[in-house]
């Protein structure tokens, strides 16, 4: 089902003819110590089915009890999104059969979500602020994880058998749902990416989640529909049929998936075909989506209030206290830090885009200059993380180590090229920068004795070059400096070498 070019319409044609409407559902796993309804650990990556108990396995007779920390996190998220917090609300059961759902119903919230009617101001790359309306944020439990074995796609279709890991079953989730986002026009994919990024920054600032998209602790489902533009350029009123692309798991993919769906739907509409309301799978490698399962508004989950749990009734005084102790909003914080660090807009944007704000802050806090900290985190380290497909913060290097490295460069003990090698050593687990410098013998040689001898040998080995310099052609010195650097295997202070060469061949 790979798309061919005929299946998509050029992007410019899509946005000329249609107005995209997007809706984003973000699922965030809370970083509570225990699960939503039982005392099991939530640590990621444990051996399958080791973090389970009668409750999260849905054994007969077991009952849920609500995790108070999860409720607190949900209220704080709601407040940070400028939502109203429901004074009273019940959990509901969402009934459907699936092997990774231990009870064959998900304990969720339905018509009484804990937070409703908020908004989030999203900054686009050029600084434009776009307000996204939030419909609701509600609490629910995660499902287990199915592993389909034997098929070529890793999906259930074609698999020989499936295994289920219930460690994830019962992990607290908050689902944040936007209202339909209209008016973004050709910037819709960018708005989608920026929105998910802004949610991620907000959740990180709240300290309620690891927000690691690559580990699935932040997941995004993107709803996309197109509606025809009227000749006057205004959009027709009715919304088009939407598709829901599931589990888009990086910021870049959110943008690409929305963009792809726009071009795919555009091609269908332009050819007179209709859009099927369905869920779609995102394929990272091909940058396309394929049909999942048909979904209609008639999907019947037979919701009813969860009788095993008492209603949640947050004390208004407690909610007010939480509201007063919310952290600074990420955009305001960015502006404050940019001013304090004296960074240009472009530098600051690179840094934010790399997800490096907190890391730079921590690096500056242990003594590095803001410029150096920003340079390393949004440069070499961001590239390394990108290549490995992991979050910057999960690289095996600490802000203190980056600060130490910056110190080595600043004091002239290593140059930039060598510093990058030191970085590789640290990332490879060889210890702190100082230790790597020692172990790899990477220190610059600036000792005049050793350098002087090498310079003498270089002059002796290239008398013609030396003669040119003596004749005043100083620019020829590069060849001699190069020879010295080669002999010193690059670990010489190039500026000092130049001084020594000129001192020997030009007389004052």
């Amino acid at each position: 089902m790979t798309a061919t070019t005929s299946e998509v319409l050029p992007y410019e044609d899509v946005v000329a003819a249609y107005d995209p409407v997007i809706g984003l559902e973000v699922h965030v796993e809370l970083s509570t110590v225990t699960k939503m309804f039982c005392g099991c650990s939530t640590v990621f990556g444990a051996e399958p089915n080791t973090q389970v108990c009668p409750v999260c396995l849905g054994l007969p007779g077991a009952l849920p009890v609500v995790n108070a920390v999860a409720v607190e996190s949900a209220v704080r998220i709601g407040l940070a999104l400028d939502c109203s917090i429901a004074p009273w609300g019940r959990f509901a059961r969402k009934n459907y059969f699936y092997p990774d759902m231990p009870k064959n119903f998900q304990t969720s919230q339905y018509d009484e979500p804990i937070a409703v009617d908020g908004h989030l101001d999203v900054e686009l790359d050029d600084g434009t602020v776009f307000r996204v309306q939030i419909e609701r944020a509600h609490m629910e439990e995660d499902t287990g994880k199915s592993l389909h074995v034997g098929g070529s796609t890793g999906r259930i279709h074609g698999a020989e058998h499936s295994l289920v890991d219930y460690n994830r079953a019962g992990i607290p989730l908050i689902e944040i749902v936007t209202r339909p986002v209209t008016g973004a026009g050709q910037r819709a994919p960018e708005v989608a990416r920026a929105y998910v990024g802004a949610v991620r920054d907000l959740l990180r600032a709240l300290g309620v989640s690891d927000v690691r998209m690559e580990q699935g602790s932040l997941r995004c489902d993107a709803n996309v529909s197109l509606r025809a533009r009227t000749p006057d350029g205004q959009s027709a009123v009715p919304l088009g049929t939407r598709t829901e692309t599931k589990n888009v798991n990086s910021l870049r993919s959110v943008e690409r998936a929305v963009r792809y769906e726009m071009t795919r739907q555009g091609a269908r509409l332009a050819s007179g075909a209709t859009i099927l309301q369905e869920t779609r799978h995102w394929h990272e490698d091909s940058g396309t989506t394929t049909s999942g399962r048909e979904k209609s508004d008639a999907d019947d989950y037979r919701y009813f209030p969860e009788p095993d749990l008492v209603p949640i009734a947050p004390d208004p005084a407690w909610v007010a206290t939480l509201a007063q102790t919310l952290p600074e909003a990420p955009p305001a914080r960015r502006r404050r830090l940019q001013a304090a660090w004296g960074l240009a807009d472009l530098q600051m944007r690179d840094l934010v885009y790399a997800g490096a704000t907190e890391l730079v802050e921590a690096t500056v806090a242990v003594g590095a200059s803001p410029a150096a900290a920003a340079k390393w985190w949004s440069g070499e380290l961001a590239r390394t993380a990108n290549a490995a497909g992991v979050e910057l913060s999960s690289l095996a290097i600490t802000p203190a180590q980056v600060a130490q490295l910056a110190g080595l460069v600043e004091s002239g003990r290593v140059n930039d090229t060598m510093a990058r090698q030191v970085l590789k050593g640290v990332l490879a687990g060889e210890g702190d920068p100082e230790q790597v410098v020692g172990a790899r013998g990477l220190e610059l040689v600036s000792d005049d004795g050793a350098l002087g001898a090498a310079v003498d040998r270089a002059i002796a080995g290239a008398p013609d070059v030396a003669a040119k310099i003596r004749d005043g052609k100083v620019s020829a010195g590069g060849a001699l400096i190069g020879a010295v650097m080669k002999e010193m295997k690059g670990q010489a202070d190039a500026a000092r070498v130049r001084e020594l060469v000129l001192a020997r061949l030009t007389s004052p």
Partner: protein
Amino acid sequence: MTGTSPDLTRWSATDLAAALAVGEVSAVEVTRAHLDRIAAVDPEVHAFLHVGADGALAAARAVDDARAAGRPLGPLAGVPVAVKDVVTTQGLPTTAGSRILAGWVPPYDATLVTRLRAGGLVLLGKTNMDEFAMGSSTEHSAYGPTHNPWDLERIPGGSGGGSAAAVAAFEAPLAIGTDTGGSIRQPAAVTGTVGVKPTYGGVSRYGLIALASSLDQAGPCARSVLDAAALHEVIGGHDPRDSTSIDAPAPAAVEAARRADVRGLRIGVVRELGGDGYQAGVRTRFDESVQLLVDAGAEVVEVSCPSFEYALAAYYLILPSEASSNLARFDAMRYGLRVVPDGVDAPTAEQVMAATRDAGFGDEVKRRIILGTYALSSGYYDAYYGQAQKVRTLIARDFEAAFGRVDVLMSPTTPTTAFRLGEKLDDPVAMYLSDVATIPANLAGIPGMSLPAGLADEDGLPVGVQLLAPATHDARLYGVGAALEAMLLERWGGPLLDRAPALPTTAPTREGVA
């Protein structure tokens, strides 16, 4: 049933506890006596689905050792108890009377079982029941019906017929039941025993295989009000594992039962729970009980609860709705029966789920799952589940108004005495009507007790009288119940169960149970 009979199985739990406390008998002796009795009569009664003889004797030995060592023990330490098979017991099979859980041994104890074990009670085994507690006769058990010790051709009530029959047949002095719409009280009524449904949230539901979560409540089954009170105190009280559990200690039931005083008490007879549709012998025995209370100094008035008319209909929407969701987990993926469909090459998980549920659930369970699935469907929810919840509110208001006037309400427990096995099996609605008087208490979450009022003149079978109290006032039931029980003992010249016919016995083979 006093401590003077040579047969330990005829003793009350209270008398056994007293004799155990002073070392007059050992827990092992008491346990052996009951295991022997089970071996002798259970082939005919079939109250038990599983007897854990080895575990019971080991537990009894541990109690005897602890007592010998002078360690502190609970008031019922060493007294045997039977547990309805809907309650999880670590190491003992738990099937809820269903084929779909055949052979399942839970890895954990229900909270009430933890409390029984901690209190030194000896678990004899698991008692028979209608599948997933759906029924009023125990005929819907996948493992065959239980027989009423008063007449083996008759039903012992349900769903907890096994627990009531075990107590009535002197196979156990105490048993645990669960009551969703009458499953403790109705079996108690038709077997001449005492059964109490505590206030909703009074006994932890953690480890009760859920039928209808908002209605289910575990409680004691016994042969006397005092014995029920003692067991209630062991299992009751707050449990942090059950979010709907009331944050209060167990009621002072024993103290209330010992005081047994009704002077000045206002008692209401519910007009809607009696009269037409109630068997003549049931009405006679009920009227007598009312008169005894008047004679003892209680003030009796008639009260009306007009919404009770809709209770049965509301109950049969709420219960199936919750059950359809609660029973979804039985899908062959993690535990219990797994059936691979015939003639399907490489079946999908969905096909295995369907085949297993088709083979593993009985007709009554399927009937209620279908009913509940329908009632919760979008487009029908408001008309069915939504309306039923409104009726529930109205019923709670009726009770509230009634308890504004009286301290305790009274009615017959059931419209009839025990009917014959098979009599109502093909008529679900007739079967559902067995619980018409017990259901309102579950819908409102209030406590209820059934105690024996005597034998019906026309068939010589036990009649039960039901007492109801406001939520959290369970102790009041024990006070009134014990007073009425004492007067009835005098009226009948001794315990009603002394009049039950002797059961056919199989010669006890100690190897068979030890």
